[in-house]
């Protein structure tokens, strides 16, 4: 029967579309770099040592660093053509799950491993455990769209109240006080948050919790907990909504704050409000403490930093590997790739793609640790 055939075909198409769409949304990042080819002439062939790296590296995890990994993979595989690297940006949670099940050589995560995950990693790292290597930094920009307003200064308490639906209009005195020279319209605030669980939400709410706990009475975590406001899926979806909705405000990685989305300057208590830039994020990460034990380099960011020009709402993405007991067939390639991305050239690629390089002393520790992987 013709009709049934049609439907079956449509269903198959639909199924394909859905699975394809899932893969697409999982990666969740359209190439927002704008720079088509992020070489910048930064690669000297010398910085990439292929050694005896061979074969296929599978990796999965944070979608926040997907663009960075893609740029690195391009550089690396052009030098070491015996290696194929496949990084699926399925989200930090998916990456850690894949890592503890031994499916990937390394994972990317926006949050350091917790104790349960470390315990689970001991099963795959024979004689060792999973460790966090901070590799990619990124400012989480707060984008806004208010017609007639080009620059906006907010501080932590005001941000918390806006995202908790306590401040609902742009002409609220609290906002006016921070922006004496700006003419604020009488316009409803549409605060957008992520509808999917995300490391970006985790880091944004960590900032609010650390700086203004009185105004943010939630636990934090990857799931958005405040009531009210609006939600959209993925950083790109959030940026799109902010762009097309007058009165909107939302948070996403800086690389999504493109095409006319303006970003909020944060009043941290420093002399001047801090802009969301790559350099300012690196300055904030320099204030972080290493809290991981042994070879684990998990960082604790100082969200309450008042340092001049340090942008406090910053996210660090870790690469997660075994310190000992990596699979022997992928170890050379894993080491060579991590060595390259931690090198000076590798970190320079970051800045060209709206990511923040790690501060010098932290990346030095990362490099030492990578050499000791076994």
């Amino acid at each position, binding site marked *: 029967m013709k*009709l049934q055939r049609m439907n079956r075909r449509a269903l198959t198409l639909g199924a394909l579309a859905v699975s394809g*769409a899932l893969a697409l949304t999982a990666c969740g990042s359209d190439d927002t770099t704008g720079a088509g080819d992020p070489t910048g002439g930064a690669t000297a062939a010398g910085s990439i040592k292929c050694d005896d790296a061979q074969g296929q590296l599978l990796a999965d995890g944070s979608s926040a660093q997907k663009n960075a990994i893609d740029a690195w993979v391009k550089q690396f595989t052009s030098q070491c053509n015996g290696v194929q690297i496949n990084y699926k940006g399925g989200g930090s949670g998916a990456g850690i799950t894949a890592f503890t099940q031994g499916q990937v050589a390394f994972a990317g995560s926006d949050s350091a491993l917790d104790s349960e995950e470390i315990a689970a990693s001991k099963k795959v790292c024979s004689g060792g455990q999973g460790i966090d290597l901070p590799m990619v930094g990124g400012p989480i920009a707060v984008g806004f769209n208010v017609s007639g307003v080009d620059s906006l200064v907010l501080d932590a308490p005001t941000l918390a109240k806006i995202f908790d639906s306590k401040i609902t209009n742009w002409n609220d005195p609290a906002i006016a006080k921070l922006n004496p020279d700006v003419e604020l319209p009488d316009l409803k605030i549409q605060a957008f948050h992520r509808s*999917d669980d995300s490391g970006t939400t985790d880091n944004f709410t960590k900032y609010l919790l650390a700086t203004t706990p009185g105004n943010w009475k939630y636990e934090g975590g990857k799931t958005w907990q405040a009531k009210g406001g609006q939600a959209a899926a993925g950083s790109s979806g959030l940026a799109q*909504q902010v762009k097309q909705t007058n009165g909107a405000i939302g948070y996403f990685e800086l690389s999504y704050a493109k095409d006319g989305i303006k970003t909020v300057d944060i009043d941290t208590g420093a002399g001047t409000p801090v802009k969301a830039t790559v350099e300012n994020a690196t300055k904030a990460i320099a204030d972080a403490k290493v809290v991981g034990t042994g070879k684990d380099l998990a960082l604790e960011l100082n969200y309450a930093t008042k340092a001049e020009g340090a942008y406090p709402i910053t996210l660090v993405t870790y690469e997660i590997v075994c310190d000992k007991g990596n699979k022997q067939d992928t170890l050379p390639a894993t080491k060579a790739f991590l060595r390259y991305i931690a090198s000076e050239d590798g970190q320079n690629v970051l800045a060209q793609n709206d990511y923040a390089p790690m501060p010098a002393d932290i990346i030095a520790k990362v490099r030492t640790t990578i050499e000791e992987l076994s």
Partner: protein
Amino acid sequence: MDITTAPTDAPPHLSQPSPAEQKRAARGATRPGDRIFLGLSRGSGILLLVIMAAIAVFLTWRAALAISEDEGNFLTTFEWNTQAQPPVFGIAVLAFGTVVSSIIAMVIAVPVAVAIALFLTHYAPRKLSGPIAYVIDLLAAVPSIVYGLWGALILVPHLNGLYAWLDQYFGWTGILEWNGGAPRSMFTVGILLAIMILPIITNVSREVFRQVPQMHEEAALALGATRWEVIRMAVIPFGRSGVISASMLGLGRALGETMAVATVLSPSFEIQASLLDPGGGTFAQNIASKFGEASEFGRDALIASGLVLFVITLLVNGAARAIIARRKEYSGANA
């Protein structure tokens, strides 16, 4: 088709079939080809049951793991936090959202689909009905993520006017009040789902209306009925159960739609009094948006919600089958 009917004419090489052979012929399988085909078709049937059972067992087992750890009541909690210690999650909002968005979709899609089907079978000139039917089939072939993108980028920004109008004239009902948020609500999802399930309902209804016995229509015309009266007296009563089962097929799709809803809806774990305010969620949308960052346990919790959707969909399909079973006169929807 009844497989136990004996072939009406005996094979040519058997002029006088013996009783035993007749019996065998009545059973069907006589030559290797028959036996192989019987085995293949029976095997396919069994395989299908095994797959369904495997899915049900898997869903139930993983769901049981998750629900046993759930601090809240799985059926009534308005929260989904699987990362918390202890985890709290419940499907109240999801069940409500799934049902409400599907109902809105049905309310919009069914009348339109029936009208299109009637137009194609009774009003449209033959030259026109072919192309229109083809365009409707095309609607079914559009991937749902494309509907989602179109919904988020085109439909949502253009719904402000409709929302303002609804709020102005129907705001007093409470369920059509609008607070001025971006129109990414259950109502918008319903509109989008309506467009997505239109083709299947239209197609099946069209097939059903085609099956209306010519005699009935001619009899009505002979009594002096107008075309509308013919449709009212002969076509619609005959096709009613067919349209119902077509709607059930559409409903099944609306219940399980994932990407389009996840792209368009602004979800939250609360039930909004007004259909126009952003919030709520559906089973499939929640699974899609939470899956990427979920821990092992978080996935089990999502699977538990998937089990509920599985059950709801089974019930809907069962209802559709029951309606079809009541009336077998037409072969439109159960061929």
